[in-house]
Structures are given as structure tokens and as C-alpha cells.
């Protein structure tokens, strides 16, 4: 172990400049092309936000084309097919390529700074997520240039998006591209959950966390639970389109409504996933401009929990007109009404904060005012469409378009702009000039209301969504003209904001520390932020929005906090106990690398191969990506035991490789929650079709067979037992390789038995029942295969000295994976045995 010059020196002898240079050497992203290898949260967060901003501009241009088309009746500007591609792409870009990545970028950029950490939990995974997002988004957007953009609406309803009605690759572009992009959302959400729970400044207990961290924790968990149903739905629909597995085809035991359920189980929480972080920005800003700590911190946290759950019980309020019985509709209608309450708690908390404080007016407040006005209007129309009788009238009209934009633009774009102007001095190191921020606001505010208020009226007059033209005698024309003029004004507003940002970057004066007197840790770091964020890490003794960043910033820059030295050229930050907030490990990050870029590019090529129906290439790509993940794992971690390492303030904690609660372990649990949600969605799909779909029972039942199922259970349990045996052997200081070898044998047995069960099934293209069983059994096979990758990696890393009696993290991860595979596999096999018994009951349905 080597320590650099300042290590061990008394605080007064430390040189801040030397510390800064040493940290920059370790954390810096490198110049020019080397930037592509960066895994730093500031670089990646900014990259996410800029890329999302570019997609926002593309989505905005598409919106202007839509408004140009609808401004006059019987317009010859666009044909129906082009219009369908443009409105589908507008919604898709704004929801998937702008809103979610923008909030991820903001959270990734801000959270370590707000929580007193040097980086997010998994820098390479974050970089991999970014490249997946960029490549997936590019595939989707570039498809428009080739005239094959998705054209079935951003929610891809079947049967319109099914093969018989959309025979081109348009729908495939959406299904594959969005699934690719969602890898990014899931990896990022996992990273955020672990970062928030494990990587905070020592002393920052849960009750002292900055409120934005609570918002992002809830949002990330919602992504973990909300995105898997759509990923599963996309996989099933692509399997139907590419291979004929009829999950959504009513003529073969599938159901078109199943898609709507899977989509909206994702789609409604998605709205809150977009709103909640934006509300988190406001909860951070409001106390600063009210000059009073946030009122109702605990009530807000409880409201967020309620919000997170209630938002999942609302999905069918997008499906009121599909014939769902009154009782079930009422569940969804009442939950839709209840979700207003946690929203109101937040708004009242902000008002109370203003009431108790001494509010001051500045540009971020202007955008806050815009948010309140527009979002409350959107909320009120939300209550209207939550009522079944009203929704039956307004469904699929422009009223819903207006409501959605009031909620999303009011609830996301305005808070985002408030946050932009609030954090601009931090990000750029320059003080805001605000020359154009005010006219920009008024153009956006007036333009927005002119555009979308009119749509309430056209909607109430009966104008349906997604029509590319209208005859002109319905009384819609002047409202549409005004709407289109409003759209132009709105666009000018955003252009003014862009110009303001350019002026700010060019002419802004140097910003002083904490220009808003914010009281949070983000203002205690250098401006613009250095790659390492904090030269040393603070100890938090009070709520994290009540500190003095100016004084603390000077102390931290002088290396007077934790980790005020450099060591071995390691990128270090501290991990803490989730609830006590005490430091329990030094987290040592892997260095920047091109591997995330190369792996994401290979995944991208695999996706393109699937898009072009080059399935052998796609299969090869799958195996290459698997090998890359195993290869990547070979350079992570430490090759020797270190024991407790000094971290400053007289404390010492072990490196994360030797800690009991290492971040990767929590990340795997979180990832398995997402994985389990995919499985639950698949089982739901199977039972839904059994219960609701036509043409049941199937012509031939898919029986797994008692003997193969029993053998599969035995092999799964054996694989899990081997993982435990390997862990125990290593813990005793013994050799785990024999257990690993036995585990590989058991894993191969599982894949072999799964293959035999699949081969014995009826043709999965014949009916939804064998198709579902095919997917369920395939799920076991896939997990057994990934388990084999874990075991191969374990063996290689043991040989390379990355594992020891103290450094058992790899084998603990393998044990968790193998346990999950065994438990989920047994559940699946029970379902496979039960379905043939249940299937004939479908005959008894009235």
C-alpha cells in the first residue's frame, strides 16, 4: 500500500492545492477521446442531461410539425402515414428519451453532491446505461429518416401494432429500441437506490438526508417495479411479431387487452416517476427562497411512500372504456382520486414553508409559480378524468391530450427550469445573468396555456386524438389555429432560454460559493464541480439542508474531513450503515474504462441484428455480451486483504471487498426485485389469458411432465447448495473450486432438463398456453445460464487471487443468484404443473 505525500500529515500541514492536484490525477476523465471512457457521475450526469435536451429539441420539432398539420382543416402538409410516425415519435421521444433520462441525469449529477459522496455506487454501470440510452434512442429517432419510425402511438396498442396490421419494422423499432433504452433506466435506478442507501456522508442518518434523496429513492424503486411489466410486454409482443407466439392474438387464446394492462401498469406510475423528482427539485428550492427549513419533512416522506404505492393502483383508469366491470372500475377510480392527497400534502408543505419564512423573489421562483399554476390545473382535470362517467365522454379526445400536457409540462418542465436556474451557478461556476430568463418564462407560460388550454375545448367539442386531419365544419378550426400559434410562442420561449444559456456560458461572471444561501452540501464543493466533488468528506450532525456550506466548504477543501488523503491511487468514497449513518467501509471504485462503451455498442449491434431478423448474429451477440460481462468482472476488486483502513478522524473501516454489507450485494437484491417483477408479470399474463381470453381451453395442453420437473427441481436445489458450499469453504480458508465445479455441473443439468422440457412442449405458436409455458421454462434456462456465468467468473477470480476468506463478496453474490434461481424455478415449475389442470376449467366460463 502506498500513501501520497500528505497522508498522515496533521490537518494544518495539508496543502489544499496539492490535494486537489492529487485527486484530479486520480479522478480526472482525461482529455479528448479519453473522455469516452469516463465513468464519473458529473460527466455522465451532464451527458445524460445534454442528450435528453437534444431529444427534447427533436421532440419539440415534431410537436411543431403536428401543430402545423392541425392548424387548418384538410391540410395537405402531411399524409396519414407520416403523421402517425411523427405523433408516435413525439410521444415516445418525450416520455422515454427526454423525461426519464433527464431526471436520471439530474439525479446522477446532483445526488452525490447533495449527500457528501464522491461518486455513485456503480460508475461503470452508469456509463453502460448512458451508452445504451444513446444508442437505443438513436435507433428510434433515426428510423424516422428511413421512413420506418414507430407509427402505432406511443403506447403501441395491439392489435394495431401486431404483425397483421403493422407488417413493417416500425413496431419492432419501438419494441426493441425502448427495451434497449430501458436497460439504462433499470441500471440507473439500481445505482441510485444503492447510492442513496449506502453512499452518504458519515452521520447522515435517514432523517438527515436531503429531501431530494427521499424523492429519488421512491422514484428509483418505482422504476424498479414499474418498468419490468413493460419490458416483459415488449418481449412478448416482439416474440409474437417475430416468431408467432400468440400472447395477444384472440384467435389463439391471447388477449389484446393484456397488452394494455402490461403497458399501463408501467405507464401510469411512469407519470409519477416523471413528476416526483421534479417535486423533489421544488422541495429543495422552496426552503431556500422561503428562507425557512422545509415544513413537514416527515409528512412528505410518508406522502412519498403513499404516492409510490397508490400510483400502481391506478393503471386501469386508462382503460375505463374497455368493458371492465363497475366494481373493478371503482377500485381504480377511487385510487385515482386518493392519489391527489399525497400531492396536496407536498403543495401544502411548500405553502407552509413560505408562510413561515421570509420569501424572496427570483427567477427560479418565477418557474415555481408557473409550475403551481399549470400543474394544479392539470391536477384538477386529472380528478375529472379519474371519474368514470366523465372519462367515458372525454376518452381519446384532445381533452386528455391537454390534461396530460398540463400535468407533465407543468409537473416536470417548469420545475426542471426552476432547478436549471437554481443550479446553473454550481454547474458552470458562473453567476446567472437572467437577462433573458424572464421573457423566456413568459413566452413559455403564455405559449403553453394558449396551446393546450384550447385542446380542452376541442376535446370537449369531440375532436379525437391521433387524427391527421378534420373536415373543418365542427367548430374546431379557430381553436386549432390558436393552439398552433401558442405552439410557436412556446417554441420561441425555449429558444430564448437556449440563448440565455449561451450568454450565461459566454459572459457570466464568476459565481461565489453558495450564491442562494442554500444550506445544502452541493454548495460546499468547488464551482464548477471537480471530478472528485469533495476533497474530503464531511461529517453531518444536523439535517442536511441546515448546514453552512461556506465554512464547511473551506474545511473540506483543506482535507479536514474524511478521506482527506489519497491512497494507492484509489478512487475512494465512504460507504455507511443504512440506518445509523456511520461509516462501515471504504468503497474503492474501478477506474475509468472503455468497456461500458464497447459492451453497450455490442448490445446495440445485437438489437440491430434482431431488428433486421439476423437471428444467428443476434444469438452470437448475446454470447459475446455475456463473455464481456465475465471479462469486465476480472479487473474489479482487490487482490489482497487489507483489514480496516484509516479514514480520518481516528476511524478505520475495511474496504468494501471485505465489508459485510457491500453495495453490490444490495444492488443484486434490487435487481432481483426487478427480475421477480418480470416473472410475476409473466405469470399474471398466463393467468389473465386463461381467465379472460377467448378460444380456451387450448387444443393441446403443455405438460411439463412430472419426472423432468422433479429432476429440474433437484438440479436447482443442488446448484443453490453448491453455491452455499463454496461460500462456506472459502470462509474456512479452504478451496471453493470443487464446489464451484459441482455448481457448474448442476447448472448444466438444469439447462439440459429445461431444454428437454421445452422440446417436449406443443408448438408454442399454436396457442397462448404453450407459448406462456415456453417463456416460463425459458426463464429458468436463462437464469441457470447466468448462474453459470457467475460460477465461471468465480473460478477465474479465485485463481487470480481476488477471493479470500475475508473477500467473499463474489461467492455471496453467486449464492443470492442461485437461491433466487432455485426459488423462482420451483415456483415456475409448480405453475407449469398447475396450468394444464386449470386450463380445462376455462370451458366453464359463462
Amino acid at each position, binding site marked *: 500500500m502506498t500513501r501520497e505525500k500528505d497522508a498522515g500529515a496533521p490537518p494544518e500541514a495539508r496543502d489544499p492545492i496539492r490535494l486537489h492536484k492529487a485527486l484530479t490525477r486520480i479522478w480526472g476523465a482525461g482529455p479528448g477521446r479519453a473522455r469516452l471512457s469516463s465513468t464519473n457521475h458529473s460527466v455522465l450526469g451532464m451527458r445524460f442531461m445534454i442528450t435528453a435536451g437534444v431529444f427534447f429539441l427533436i421532440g419539440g420539432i415534431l410537436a411543431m410539425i403536428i401543430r402545423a398539420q392541425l392548424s387548418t382543416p384538410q391540410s395537405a402538409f402531411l399524409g396519414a402515414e407520416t403523421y402517425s410516425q411523427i405523433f408516435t415519435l413525439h410521444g415516445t421521444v418525450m416520455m422515454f428519451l427526454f423525461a426519464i433520462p433527464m431526471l436520471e441525469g439530474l439525479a446522477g449529477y446532483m445526488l452525490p453532491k447533495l449527500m457528501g459522496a464522491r461518486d455513485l455506487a456503480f460508475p461503470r454501470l452508469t456509463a453502460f446505461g448512458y451508452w445504451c440510452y444513446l444508442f437505443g434512442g438513436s435507433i428510434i429517432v433515426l428510423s424516422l429518416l428511413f421512413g420506418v419510425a414507430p407509427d402505432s402511438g406511443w403506447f403501441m396498442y395491439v392489435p394495431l401494432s401486431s404483425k397483421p396490421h403493422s407488417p413493417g419494422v416500425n413496431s419492432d423499432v419501438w419494441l426493441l429500441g425502448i427495451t434497449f433504452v430501458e436497460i439504462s433506466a433499470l441500471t440507473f435506478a439500481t445505482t441510485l437506490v444503492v447510492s442513496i442507501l449506502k453512499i452518504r456522508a458519515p452521520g447522515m442518518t*435517514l432523517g438527515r438526508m436531503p429531501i431530494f434523496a427521499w424523492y429519488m429513492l421512491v422514484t428509483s424503486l418505482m422504476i424498479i417495479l414499474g418498468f419490468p411489466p413493460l419490458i416483459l410486454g415488449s418481449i412478448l409482443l416482439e416474440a409474437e411479431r417475430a416468431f408467432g407466439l400468440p400472447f395477444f392474438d384472440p384467435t389463439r387464446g391471447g388477449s389484446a387487452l393484456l397488452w394494455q394492462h402490461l403497458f399501463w401498469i408501467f405507464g401510469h406510475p411512469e407519470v409519477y416517476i416523471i413528476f416526483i423528482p421534479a417535486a423533489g427539485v421544488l422541495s429543495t428550492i422552496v426552503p431556500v427562497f422561503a428562507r425557512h427549513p422545509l415544513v413537514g419533512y*416527515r409528512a412528505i416522506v410518508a406522502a412519498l411512500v403513499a404516492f409510490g*404505492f397508490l400510483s400502481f393502483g391506478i393503471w386501469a383508469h386508462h382503460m375505463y372504456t374497455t368493458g371492465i*366491470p363497475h*366494481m373493478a372500475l371503482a377500485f381504480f377510480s*377511487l385510487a385515482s382520486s386518493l392519489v391527489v392527497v399525497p400531492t396536496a400534502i407536498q403543495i401544502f408543505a411548500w405553502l407552509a414553508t413560505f408562510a413561515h419564512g421570509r420569501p424572496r423573489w427570483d427567477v427560479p421562483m418565477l418557474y415555481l409559480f408557473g409550475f403551481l399554476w399549470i400543474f394544479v390545473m392539470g391536477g384538477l382535470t386529472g380528478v375529472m378524468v379519474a371519474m368514470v362517467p366523465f372519462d367515458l365522454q372525454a376518452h381519446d379526445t384532445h381533452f386528455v391530450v391537454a390534461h396530460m400536457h398540463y400535468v407533465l409540462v407543468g409537473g416536470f418542465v417548469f420545475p426542471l427550469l426552476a432547478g436549471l436556474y437554481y443550479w446553473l451557478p454550481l454547474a458552470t461556476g458562473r453567476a446567472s445573468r437572467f437577462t433573458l430568463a424572464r421573457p423566456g418564462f413568459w413566452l413559455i407560460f403564455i405559449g403553453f396555456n394558449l396551446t393546450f388550454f384550447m385542446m380542452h375545448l376541442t376535446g370537449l367539442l369531440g375532436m379525437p386524438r391521433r387524427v391527421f386531419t378534420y373536415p373543418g365544419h365542427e367548430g374546431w378550426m379557430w381553436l386549432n389555429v390558436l393552439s398552433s400559434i401558442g405552439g410557436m410562442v412556446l417554441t420561441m420561449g425555449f429558444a430564448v432560454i437556449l440563448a440565455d444559456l449561451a450568454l450565461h456560458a459566454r459572459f457570466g461572471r464568476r459565481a461565489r460559493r453558495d450564491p442562494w444561501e442554500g444550506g445544502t452540501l452541493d454548495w460546499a464543493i468547488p464551482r464548477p464541480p471537480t471530478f472528485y466533488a469533495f476533497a474530503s468528506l464531511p461529517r453531518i450532525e444536523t439535517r442536511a439542508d441546515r448546514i453552512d456550506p461556506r465554512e464547511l466548504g473551506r474545511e473540506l477543501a483543506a482535507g479536514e474531513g474524511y478521506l482527506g488523503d489519497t491512497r494507492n491511487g484509489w478512487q475512494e468514497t465512504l460507504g455507511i450503515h*443504512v440506518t445509523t449513518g456511520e461509516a462501515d467501509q471504504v468503497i474503492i471504485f474501478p477506474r475509468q474504462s472503455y468497456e461500458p462503451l464497447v459492451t453497450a455498442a455490442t448490445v446495440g449491434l445485437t438489437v440491430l441484428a434482431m431488428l433486421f431478423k439476423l437471428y444467428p448474429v443476434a444469438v452470437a451477440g448475446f454470447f459475446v455480451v455475456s463473455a464481456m460481462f465475465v471479462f469486465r468482472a476480472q479487473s474489479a476488486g482487490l487482490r489482497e486483504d487489507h483489514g480496516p483502513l484509516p479514514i480520518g478522524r481516528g476511524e478505520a473501516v475495511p474496504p468494501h471487498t471485505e465489508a459485510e454489507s457491500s453495495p453490490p450485494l444490495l444492488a443484486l437484491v434490487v435487481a432481483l426485485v426487478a427480475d421477480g417483477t418480470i416473472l410475476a408479470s409473466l405469470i399474471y399474463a398466463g393467468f389473465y389469458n386463461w381467465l379472460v381470453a377467448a378460444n380456451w381451453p387450448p387444443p393441446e395442453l403443455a405438460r411439463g411432465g412430472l419426472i423432468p420437473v422433479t429432476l429440474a427441481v433437484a438440479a436447482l436445489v443442488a446448484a443453490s447448495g453448491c453455491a452455499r458450499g463454496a461460500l462456506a469453504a472459502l470462509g474456512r480458508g479452504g478451496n471453493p473450486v470443487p464446489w464451484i465445479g459441482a455448481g457448474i455441473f448442476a447448472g448444466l443439468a438444469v439447462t439440459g432438463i429445461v431444454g428437454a422440457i421445452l422440446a417436449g412442449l406443443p408448438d408454442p405458436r399454436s396457442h397462448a398456453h404453450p407459448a406462456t409455458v415456453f417463456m416460463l421454462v425459458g426463464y429458468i434456462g436463462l437464469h441457470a445460464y447466468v448462474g453459470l456465468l457467475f460460477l465461471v467468473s468465480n473460478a477465474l477470480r479465485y485463481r487470480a487471487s481476488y477471493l479470500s476468506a475475508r473477500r467473499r463478496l463474489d461467492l455471496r453474490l453467486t449464492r443470492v443468484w442461485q437461491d433466487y434461481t432455485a426459488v423462482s424455478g420451483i415456483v415456475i415449475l409448480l405453475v407449469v404443473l398447475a396450468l394444464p389442470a386449470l386450463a380445462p*376449467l376455462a370451458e366453464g366460463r359463462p
Partner: protein
Amino acid sequence: MKEQAPARLLWMVAGFAVWSSAFIVLYSLQGLGCAYGWPDPAYRLVLFAVLGLHLGAIALLFRRSRERLASGFLRPVVELALWAALVATLLTFAPALLLTACR
């Protein structure tokens, strides 16, 4: 240290986990009952019984949370979340169970 175990965070979501369970079970039973034409009075009574069980589970969580959670940040947040879950369970399902089940 047990007092501070990370798993105690799960108390924050316990109440709404019960709400979610009520949602899944009631929605599934409603679908099954309608698909197979279960007779109405008994069917509705079963639904109310399921709701009652879930409300009871939340009441139990109240009692247990007071026994197991020390004062501090977590306890008041858990209590607020439990109250919210109790009210949400009652309001989401009780009125709905009085409506027509299968039309």
C-alpha cells in the same frame, strides 16, 4: 444494533404492502367470480371478509410498530404511512364492493 437493522426500513412500506395485497386479491377474486359466475351474496361476503382481514392486518401493524420501533425519525413516518394505508384501504375498496360486480 438490531434496533438499527436496515430491514427496519421495510416498516415504512408495510402498510401499503397490505393495501397492495388487498388490491391484488380483491381484483383477482372479482375477476374469478365474474368469470365463473359465483353466486352474489356469498361472493360479496367473501370480498368483504378479505377486506376485513387486510384492515385487521394494518391494525396489527400499528400495534407491532409501537412495540418494535424506538422513537426517532422512523417511528412517526411509519405511523403516518400506516394511517395513510388504513384510510386508503378503506376508501379504495369499501365503497367499490357495494357496486355491481360483473357488469
